[in-house]
Structure formats: structure tokens, C-alpha cells
């Protein structure tokens, strides 16, 4: 039998769900399982209702399941909201004392977490008790938790470590002893060593690996984790991670840094991105490379700041006034994010253009177990002139066949004088008014779109080449769609997935694949089915429709399956 369990930790903001969840997920990864974990939280710091959900299995898991096997309820609301999600053998773990209520149904496991924590040295360790208890319920080995607790609390001194281990063990033992209905069967995983990584971590580490030395950003959920991570490594890797006064400053600083010669990026979400659009256009005109992570969340306006949506594909595509080339990449998960952002830097510098990396809250905040990341897979292609190629009469915007002008940086080789202008300019970079030069410069810039297009990989087709049903997705819905495809095929519906993690310029192969399919739908976390419209805009192909979700929550595979079945039957 395949192990495939889901643990959901529910409670209020401020109760430390993130810590419990993260520790538990790490333990399970270390134990050799594949893990996928996602987070659901409100835009508040204390109170409300949040959860952290971990799915682990001995086969690859890429999205959240709908059933919960163990619900760790840190408040009553979690029980009321989520008891309906319990699987047949599912259990709810809670502390009757701290919740001031006692449930009688057999699928509740009462653990005096508070009392055990106090015994171990303090109430703060309730969460560690909970983690221990979950492992006890699973009848899992305790040793790994001990290691993880050591690593987690090392900085706080040995006493804290000891106490936490004590707390964890008491929860572990209590649960193991008392959970007679716990019938979870573990396999021990496949024993492979894996890492656990979130989308934001992957983007940040990928950027560092790409040699990015400059990030300026203004805090905005769900993008903040990127600059925060890079700031934490600023000294070690000589990275400037500057919190700008606003998003306008953020992008303009990054452009300034890039112009002066370093790989530079910014990260934001939709509202902040609005303020960057003039900078996007500036980068387009001055041909300054820049990577923008656009971490989407439900809009319009402030919307649901801590939730997920894919509402800004068209906005990124057409953002900024005037016309100029760009690339739009959309990593499917953390692993892909690590590589994609490196490619983004290469495209940005080779074509001296804006490159978008589309993220969203689901990608940013979710964790995936990953076999490993190869720091060498994507080379660094900076597209800069060598010092001995720099001449006195350097022309920053020289018109070439590819549209790409040789790029020097200010002062390079002790002589480069580099001039650029947000006004239309001549090859040297000076402001002009005449029609002929204007026309030549527009054509030069737009020409680069062809080069960018040549960088786009053939889109990934999962499943038959000529399926009855083709599900087309982009970005972070990848995991849910791929699992839906597996389920549908098992149910006898011949289904494939076409997934775009590099969206723009649209690869011509997309049309071919659609042509080969029976019925095609896009699956998108938005209302208007933006990818479907984009495909029609580029290819004239009219898809059957879009399976959309726009309540701020990510898709599950189960939902996609039901929606496809409904579509087929109705």
C-alpha cells in the first residue's frame, strides 16, 4: 500500500502553526517521505483562523489532498471548520484543557498538551508537544524529531533544546500510548535524502546562484520572503538587499544597479507592481536588464492579501506604457522556481529586457520536498562586453541585426562612457526627435522579441500526445493539475496536461498540441481565464473553456477532476 497521509494543523494566528508545521514537515522529509505542505492564513497577526497542511507519501506528491488524516486543532474553530474533512480513519488531536471543551466522539484524541508542556519546562512548548504527539499517533520513530529540535533551538542554548526534546517526547509517548484508534501504517519512505523548500526560498536561492547582487523591494505579501531571505545572506554573499521607501523606488533602484553593472531584481505583489509599471517601461526603453518577481494574490486592490490567485498574466504582459519586448516565466513549483529565476536573469541580460517571474501565494508559501537542486545546471550568461572590447566612442544603443546592442557598463575598462535615456534616443543614447531614428529604434527594440522567443523551451506535455481531454495550466497550478490528470486517466478519461512555465513569448508548439487534442480547457486560478484568452489572441484557437477558481484558494486535484467530469457530462 502507498502511504499518503495529510496532517492539518489549525488554529489562530500567533499560535505558532507555522513552526509546528515546518518542524513536522522536516521530520517527515528526513524520514524519507515526499512532502507537500501549504499554508492558509488571514491578513492579521493574532486570532482568526489559519492552517498549515502537510501531505506526505512514499510517492511524489505535488498538491494538497482534500481529506485530512490527522487534524491538530489548536482552537475550537479548527474543529468545527475541518472535522468534515476527516478521512475514514482520521483523528483529531486537541487539548481539552486549553480548548476548554471535551469531545466524546471516538475520533478525538485528547492530549493534555498544555500540562505536558508545563511539565517539560513551560507553556511555550505546547507546540513541541503537539509535534511529538502527531509522531506518536503515526507510530513514527522519535529520533529524527530530536535532531530537528536540536537544530531548531540550538541558538537558544542547550536548556531550551533539552526542554523541547522532553516536551516532544512526552507528547509522543502520551499519544502512542493513548491513541488506540490510530491505525496509520508507515512505510519508512524510500530512504532518499531530500530537501524541503518553499517557493520563496527557491526564488531567493536561485537568484543568489544566478549571481544576483542586488534586490530592492518594498514589503508585500506574499513576496516579502524573497528579500527577507536574501537580506539574511547579505553579508555572506555580498548582496545589497534594500528595503525601498516604496515600489517606485524599488524598481528604479534595481534599474540603476543593473545599469551600473550588477544583476538586479525586485519582487512585489500586484498593488506594488502597479507602481512599478513606469519603471518596467523605463527598463524597456533604456534596455536595462531587470528581473521582476510578481507574486500574485487576489485583487483588485488590496483584495485578499494572504491568499492566492493568478490574476495578473495579462497585466504583466501589457504593463508599462508603449511597446517593448519582455519575457514571462511562471515556475510550477519550488524546484522549478530555483531554475526558472536563473534563466530569467540570463534572458534579461542577453536581451537587455524585462523578465517576469510569476509567482503567487500558493507557490511562495508552499513547501515541496525536492530530490536535490543542481547549482550548475543553468549557466550564467551575462551578455556583457569584455574590457578589451570597450572602445572610446561606445554606442550603448547600437543598432544591430538582432536588436541587441553590445553592453558596456559605466566606467568599464577605465574609459566607457555609457549614455542612455528614457526619451527616444540615437545609438549613443542621446535624446532625438526625428522620425527615421525613432522608427529604427522601435524596430531594434522589438526585434529582440525574436531572440527572447528562441529562449523559450518547448512546453511540457504530460500524458498522451493526442488526448481526449487536454488541461492547460500555467504556474503554480501544476501540482493539482498533474494529479488530476492521473486520477482522470485512472478513471478512464484519457487526459493530458500542457503546462506552461514559460508563457511569453508563447511557444508555437502550444498550438500544435492543442490541435492534437480532443477538447482543451485551461485551468486557472482566476475569473476570466486569462491563459485561454492569451492563447486565442496568439493562435486564434478557441478552447472549450476555462476551469477557474477565484475565491482566493488553490485548486485541489479532486476539484479539477469534478469540474472536468461536470464539463464532460454537462
Amino acid at each position, binding site marked *: 500500500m502507498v502511504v499518503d497521509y495529510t496532517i492539518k494543523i489549525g488554529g489562530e494566528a500567533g499560535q505558532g502553526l507555522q513552526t509546528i508545521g515546518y518542524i513536522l514537515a522536516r521530520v517527515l522529509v*528526513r524520514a524519507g517521505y515526499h512532502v507537500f505542505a501549504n499554508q492558509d492564513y488571514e491578513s492579521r497577526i493574532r486570532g482568526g483562523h489559519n492552517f498549515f497542511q502537510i501531505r506526505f507519501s512514499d510517492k511524489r506528491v505535488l498538491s494538497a489532498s482534500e481529506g485530512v488524516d490527522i487534524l491538530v486543532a489548536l482552537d475550537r474553530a479548527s474543529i468545527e471548520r475541518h472535522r468534515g474533512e476527516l478521512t475514514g480513519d482520521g483523528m483529531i488531536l486537541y487539548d481539552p484543557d486549553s480548548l476548554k471543551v471535551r469531545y466524546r466522539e471516538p475520533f478525538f484524541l485528547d492530549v493534555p498538551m498544555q500540562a505536558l508542556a508545563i511539565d517539560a519546562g513551560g507553556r511555550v512548548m505546547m507546540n513541541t508537544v503537539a509535534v511529538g504527539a502527531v509522531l506518536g499517533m503515526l507510530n513514527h520513530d522519535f529520533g529524527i524529531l530530536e535532531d530537528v529540535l536540536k537544530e531548531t533551538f540550538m541558538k537558544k542554548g542547550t536548556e531550551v533544546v533539552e526542554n523541547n526534546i522532553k516536551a516532544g517526547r512526552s507528547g509522543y509517548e502520551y499519544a502512542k500510548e493513548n491513541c488506540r484508534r490510530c491505525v496509520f501504517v508507515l512505510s519508512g519512505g524510500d530512504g532518499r535524502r531530500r*530537501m*524541503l*523548500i518553499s517557493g520563496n*526560498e527557491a526564488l531567493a*536561492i536561485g537568484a*543568489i*546562484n544566478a*549571481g544576483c*547582487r*542586488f534586490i*530592492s523591494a518594498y514589503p508585500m505579501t506574499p513576496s516579502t520572503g524573497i528579500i527577507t531571505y536574501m537580506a539574511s*545572506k547579505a*553579508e*555572506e*554573499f*555580498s*548582496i*545589497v*538587499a*534594500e528595503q*525601498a*521607501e*516604496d515600489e*517606485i*523606488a*524599488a524598481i*528604479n*533602484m534595481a*534599474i*540603476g*544597479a*543593473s*545599469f*551600473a*553593472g*550588477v544583476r*538586479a531584481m525586485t519582487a512585489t505583489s500586484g498593488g506594488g507592481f502597479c507602481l512599478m509599471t*513606469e*519603471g518596467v517601461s*523605463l527598463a524597456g526603453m*533604456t534596455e536595462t536588464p531587470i528581473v521582476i518577481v510578481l507574486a500574485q494574490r487576489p485583487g483588485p486592490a488590496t483584495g485578499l492579501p494572504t491568499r492566492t490567485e493568478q490574476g495578473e498574466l495579462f497585466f504583466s504582459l501589457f504593463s508599462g506604457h508603449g511597446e517593448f519586448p519582455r519575457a514571462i516565466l511562471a515556475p510550477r513549483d519550488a524546484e522549478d522556481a530555483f531554475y526558472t529565476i536563473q534563466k530569467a536573469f540570463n534572458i534579461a541580460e542577453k536581451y537587455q529586457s524585462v523578465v517576469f517571474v510569476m509567482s503567487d501565494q500558493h507557490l511562495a508559501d508552499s513547501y515541496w520536498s525536492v530530490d536535490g*537542486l543542481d*547549482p550548475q545546471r543553468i549557466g*550564467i550568461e*551575462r551578455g556583457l562586453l569584455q574590457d578589451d572590447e570597450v572602445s572610446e566612442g561606445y554606442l550603448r544603443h547600437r543598432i544591430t541585426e538582432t536588436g541587441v546592442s553590445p553592453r558596456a*557598463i*559605466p*566606467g568599464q575598462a577605465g*574609459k566607457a*562612457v*555609457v*549614455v*542612455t*535615456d*528614457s*526619451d527616444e534616443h540615437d545609438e549613443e*543614447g*542621446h*535624446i532625438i526627435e526625428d522620425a527615421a531614428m525613432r522608427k529604427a529604434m522601435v524596430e531594434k527594440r522589438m526585434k529582440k522579441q525574436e531572440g527572447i522567443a528562441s529562449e523559450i523551451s518547448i512546453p511540457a506535455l504530460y500524458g498522451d500526445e493526442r488526448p481526449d481531454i487536454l488541461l492547460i495550466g500555467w504556474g503554480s497550478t501544476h501540482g493539482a493539475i498533474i494529479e488530476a490528470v492521473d486520477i482522470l486517466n485512472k478513471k478512464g478519461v484519457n487526459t493530458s496536461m500542457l503546462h506552461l512555465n514559460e508563457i511569453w513569448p508563447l511557444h508555437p508548439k502550444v498550438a500544435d498540441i492543442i490541435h492534437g487534442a480532443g477538447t482543451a480547457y485551461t485551468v486557472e486560478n482566476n475569473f476570466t481565464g486569462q491563459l485561454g484568452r492569451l492563447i486565442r489572441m496568439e493562435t486564434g484557437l478557441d478552447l472549450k473553456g476555462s476551469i477557474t477558481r477565484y475565491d482566493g484558494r488553490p485548486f485541489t486535484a479532486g476539484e479539477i477532476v469534478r469540474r472536468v467530469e461536470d464539463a464532460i457530462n454537462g
Partner: protein
Amino acid sequence: MPSMDDYRGQEPAWCPGCGNFQILTAVKQALIELGLMPHQVLLVSGIGQSSKLPHYMRCNTFNGLHGRTLPVATGAKLANHELVVIAVAGDGDCYGEGGNHLIHTIRRNIDITLLVHNNQIYGLTKGQASPTSDAGMVTKLQPHGVVLSPFNPIAFAVSMDAGFVARGFSGDIPHLTEMIKEGIGHRGFSMIDILQPCVTFNKLNTYAWYRERVYRLSDHDPYDRRLAFERALEWGERIPIGVIYRNHRPAFEGLVPALKKGLLVEDAGRPPIDTLLNQLY
């Protein structure tokens, strides 16, 4: 030694008689006197008549967006802190559209010299009120006269504890040249507000108007913040030019950990990220 020839640029598109010509002369003069070569200098400007200045000389130039001079300059300076970075902006550009960046660039105290061509008007867009337009000034867009109080950049900068706050007058080139040289020499952010007649649109604050009022500061201790604030409020009958306020707060570049090992732009290639990856197992 660099010469005026090294700094020769495009033909200016300014109106004959515009104060911007004088500022251009002073900037070139200052750079030459400091022995700086064009490739060592980066001028970042925004959009406005003033912001065309870099085209009219020769040096590294980023002529960016209206109002966004300072963030671009900041990014460039951080990337390569050996560059001498000068930000050139108009009063609309810097005190209007870009006001927020001025606040925070002063807080950052990064080693950039800001020249504000303060003609008390929007020149390039043909004569609307700027943040520094005197109250009551009538323009096409303010036919009933300006009713907002004028922005006092000097008092503002003093209140922000800016490291180097000076006022120049385009009509006094030698003095302005000195100010620019001192500003560039100052370690940290330096702001020079330059009174600059716009002969086409500002019929109020003319050369004569300024000449009558402007006087060179002497006997002033720029290190005394309260005194500086007093001076900063002087605007009307008499207008002081010179260094109004100074301090020696540490410059940003020295405080940013990433810059300790050298210039960011000195590409170290791909960094070893094994430690980062290992932390995730």
C-alpha cells in the same frame, strides 16, 4: 587633467538666457577642478528642462523618469560606489513627483550629490506652478494664483538632518562651482538647491529678482542645526546662498554589510551555495 573639451556634449535645447546654461558651466568646471574624467562620473537625471543637462556634457548618463532621479542614482551608487554619482533634477521632479525619494534618500545618507535646478516652475511642460512657486503666482493652470504654501527645501532638509545642505544661484557661477565641489567632496548625501531663472515662464523670479535678494553667506556656522534652521527660513527680502547645514553622519555605503568586501560590480562569478542548500535538508 580633464578639460572643458573632454566634457563637450550635445547642443543644448534650452531657451537662450536660461539659467541652466550657467549650471552646466558650473558642473563641468567643478568636475574639471576635481580632476575627474568623464568615465568616472555618472549623471542621473529625471525629466524636465534641467534633466536634459547630462546630454549637454559628456559622461556616463542615465536620463530616467520624471521624479525618479534619486532611486536610480542610489541603485547605481550601491552597485559601484567608486563612481561619482550626481543626481540632476528639477524642482518639480525632485520636490513634486519625487518628494518621497528625497525624504528617504536623505535618511539613507548615500554619497550622491543632488543638484536641484529650482526655477520655481514647471519648465518643460510650459509653465505650471511647481512646489516652490511663490504663493499668488498666476499661471495658466493656476489662473487664480497659487494657493499652496511654497515648499522650503532647505528647511525641510535641515529638519531631516541631511548631511550637506546648500543653496546656489545660477547667476553666481564661481560660488556655485564651489558648492558643487564641496558637495561632491562631502561623504554622504549632499543637496544643493540652485536658484535658476526660467526666462520664458517665470516672470516673477527673474535674474533681477534673485540678484536683488541673493547674498553669499558668511560668518555662518553650518554645523549648528538651530542656526541652520533660522537661516533656512530666510526667504523674501534676502536669500542666503552657501552651505547652510552640515554634519558628518556616516555615509550609507559604509554601513551596508554587502559593500565591505569591495564593489558589487566586481563580478565574483557564481557563488558557492552549498551551505544554503544544506540548510534545507
